[in-house]
C-alpha cells in the first residue's frame, strides 16, 4: 500500500450529508475487474449531464456546471471536505478507489460509514473526523477563498490551516502505523500464521461442522 505521511493540498467542499457509495461510484462502473481507472466516473451522476456507461470517452461528455468539482478553482484538489455519514451504503471498495484515482488523498468531515471508513485505510486514503463547528468553519473558509489549502500531518495527527491554526484528530494507532509505513496488512497477519493454524485446529476439534 502507498504510504501517507504529510499532505499539503487544495481543498474542495462537497456540502451534502449522507453521500452514499452509489453516488460516489455508480453501479455500472462496478463491472470492471480492475482496481484503477474509476476517477473519471467519480460522482458520475452529479458530475455529468448525460448518463455514463463503462467504455465511454469521458473527456467529451458534457459536465454539469453546477457540480462543485467542475468549478475550475477546485481542479487538482486533493482534500475533500464532507458532511455527516459520508460513504454510507454499499461496501464497494470502488468508492475509495475512485476518490483516490481522481486525486483525493484525504477526506475531512464529521463522520463516515464504517465499511467505507475501513476501506479508505486499505488504500492510503486518510479519512479525518473533526468537530462539527470546525468542519462548518472550514466549509465557509474554503468557499470564501479561492485556492484554499490545508496541510495534514499524520504523524502529528494535525490538520493545519494556512494561518497556522492546527486541529488535532484521532486515528487508530495501528491504522496510523500502517499508513505511515505503507504496510501490507496481509503480510503483517501472516506473521501470525502459526497462531491462526493453532486456533483453527482447536476450533475444528470443538465444532467440526463449521469445517465441512
Amino acid at each position, binding site marked *: 500500500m502507498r504510504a501517507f505521511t504529510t499532505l499539503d493540498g487544495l481543498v474542495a467542499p462537497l*456540502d*451534502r*450529508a*449522507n453521500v*452514499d457509495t*452509489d*453516488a460516489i461510484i*455508480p*453501479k*455500472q462502473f*462496478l*463491472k*470492471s*475487474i*480492475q*482496481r484503477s481507472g474509476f476517477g473519471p466516473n467519480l460522482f458520475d*451522476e452529479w458530475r455529468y449531464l448525460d*448518463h455514463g456507461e*463503462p*467504455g465511454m470517452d469521458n473527456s467529451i461528455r458534457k459536465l454539469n456546471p453546477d457540480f462543485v468539482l467542475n468549478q475550475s478553482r477546485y481542479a487538482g484538489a486533493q482534500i475533500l471536505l464532507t*458532511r*455527516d*455519514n459520508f460513504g*454510507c*451504503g*454499499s*461496501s*464497494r*471498495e470502488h468508492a*475509495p478507489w475512485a476518490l483516490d484515482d481522481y486525486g483525493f488523498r484525504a477526506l475531512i468531515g464529521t*463522520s463516515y*460509514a*464504517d*465499511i467505507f471508513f*475501513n*476501506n479508505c485505510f*486499505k*488504500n492510503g486514503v486518510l479519512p479525518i473526523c473533526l468537530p462539527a463547528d470546525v468542519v462548518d468553519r472550514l466549509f465557509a473558509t474554503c468557499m470564501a477563498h479561492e485556492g484554499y489549502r490545508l496541510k495534514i500531518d499524520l504523524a502529528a495527527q494535525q490538520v493545519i490551516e494556512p494561518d497556522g491554526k492546527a486541529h488535532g484528530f484521532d486515528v*487508530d*494507532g*495501528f491504522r496510523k502505523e500502517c499508513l505511515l509505513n505503507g504496510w*501490507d*496488512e*496481509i503480510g*503483517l*497477519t*501472516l506473521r*501470525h*500464521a502459526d*497462531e*491462526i493454524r493453532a*486456533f*483453527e485446529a482447536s*476450533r475444528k476439534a470443538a*465444532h*467440526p*461442522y*463449521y*469445517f*465441512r
Partner: protein
Amino acid sequence: MQQAQTLYEKLWSSHVVRQDADGTALIYIDRHLVHEVTSPQAFEGLKLAGRKPWRVSSIVATADHNTPTDHWEEGIKDPISRQQVETLDANIREVGSLAYFPFKDERQGIVHVIGPENGATLPGMTVVCGDSHTSTHGAFACLAHGIGTSEVEHVLATQCLMQKKSKTLLIKVDGDLAPGVTAKDVVLAIIGRIGTAGGTGYALEFGGSAIRALSMEGRMTICNMAIEAGARAGLIAVDETTIEYLKGRPYAPAGDEFDRAATYWRTLTSDAGAVYDKVVEMDAAAIRPQVTWGTSPEMVSDISGVVPDPAAEKDPVKREGMSRALAYMGLKAGTPIKRIPVDRVFIGSCTNSRIEDLRAAAAVAKGRQKADSVKQVLVVPGSGLVKRQAESEGLDKVFVAAGFEWREPGCSMCLAMNADRLESGERCASTSNRNFEGRQGAGGRTHLVSPALAAAAAIAGHFADVAELN
C-alpha cells in the same frame, strides 16, 4: 461467576485468534461468501502476491449481481457483465470452494439467500462477504458483516480479519405487530427512529417479543437492513425457530452431530443482565406499514402519513438534504403517501425475496389485476430453490394472472447492474433496501416498502393499505 455477556461479546470472544494491547484483534472467519462484483480484484491481488487461499472449504460462491432474470438461454448479453461472471467462474474453478452455484445452476441465487437456505450459514459462525448486506446472516446469531475487496483478499489469504470490538446496541421491540405489519415495516420504523448513522460503530442486536415471534425469513429481513442504520452487523439470538429452520439443510450437520451443535447454538443468546452500550425500545403495536419518501432509508413515513415539509426541519444540513430529496423524488411537501402513483413495482432483493415474502405478495395479488397505469411488476425470487418452492405452491400463476412478471433469481432491480432498471423519472414501489439517487437506474425514484405493500401498489396504481383494496 462469569460476567453476563451479550451475544456479540460471545461471538467476538470465540473468534479472537490474538489481540494486541490496543485492542486490535485478529478474528477468525468461518464462512466466506463470494460473488462476482467484489472478488475479481481480490483473487488477482492474491495471485500477484504469489499467495494461496488459506481454506477454500470456507468459500461459498455464486453469481447474482450481474445475472439476467429472463431469457437465460441467451446468456449474459452485456459483455462487461459477462466478463465479470466468467472471471468468477475461472477463479472458483482454479482455487476451489465448499459450494459454487454458478449462473443457471438450479441453486443459484442471491448470495444472502442461498447461504442460509443451504445451511451454509450456521449459528456461531463469523460470516463475511464483499457485500454490505452480509448483515443478513446475523439472523442466525452469526457475527456477519460486509467487507471491502482488500479485506476479501485478506480473508482469502489469512482466514482472518483485523478488527477492533464494536460497541453494542440493543433494539428491543416488544408487543404484537398489528395485522398486515411485517418485518420490513419494523426495520424501516427502526431506521426512521435511529437514523441511517444511528448504528455506526455498533453491532446491533434485535430483541424483544416482536422479534422472537418472527420467522427466520422475517429475521433475515430485519438484520439485512442493519447496514441501512449504519451498523455493519445485526444479530438475533438463537431460539427454537432458528434450530428448526436449520434441520435437514444440505450443509448443516445431521443426526447426533446436529443435536450436539444445537446444544451449543442454544447458548448463543445474550445473558440475563448483560450490559449494552445503548438500548432503544420500541412498541411493536405502534408500528404501521412504512413507505420511504426520500433518498435515504431514514426518510420514511407511515402509509397514512404525508410527505414532510423541509421548512419544519431546524437543522440546516438536514433541511437541505430533505429539499434535495423532494426535488429528486418529484414530490411536494404535504402530499398524502397514498396519493403517490407508481410506474413500476419490484418484488425481490436480499431483503425480501424469500418464500414468505412471495407468499405475502401473492396473497395480495390473488384474484386481482395490476393497475393499467403500472408499466411493469417484476417478481424476482431470491434463488432457484425459492423459485421452485413458489411454483410448487402455484404462486407464479397468481402473479402471472395478476399481470406481474415471474422472473429468474438474482439481485435484479435492487441495484440495476443487469438489464432490470428504472428509466429516468420513473417511480417504483420496491421491496429492496436502498432508495439512494440512481440506485435502481439513473434518475429513478425508489420507495421502499414491504412485499404486501408493493403488491398493493401494483394493484391500486398508488400506495395503498392492503385492507383498503377492493
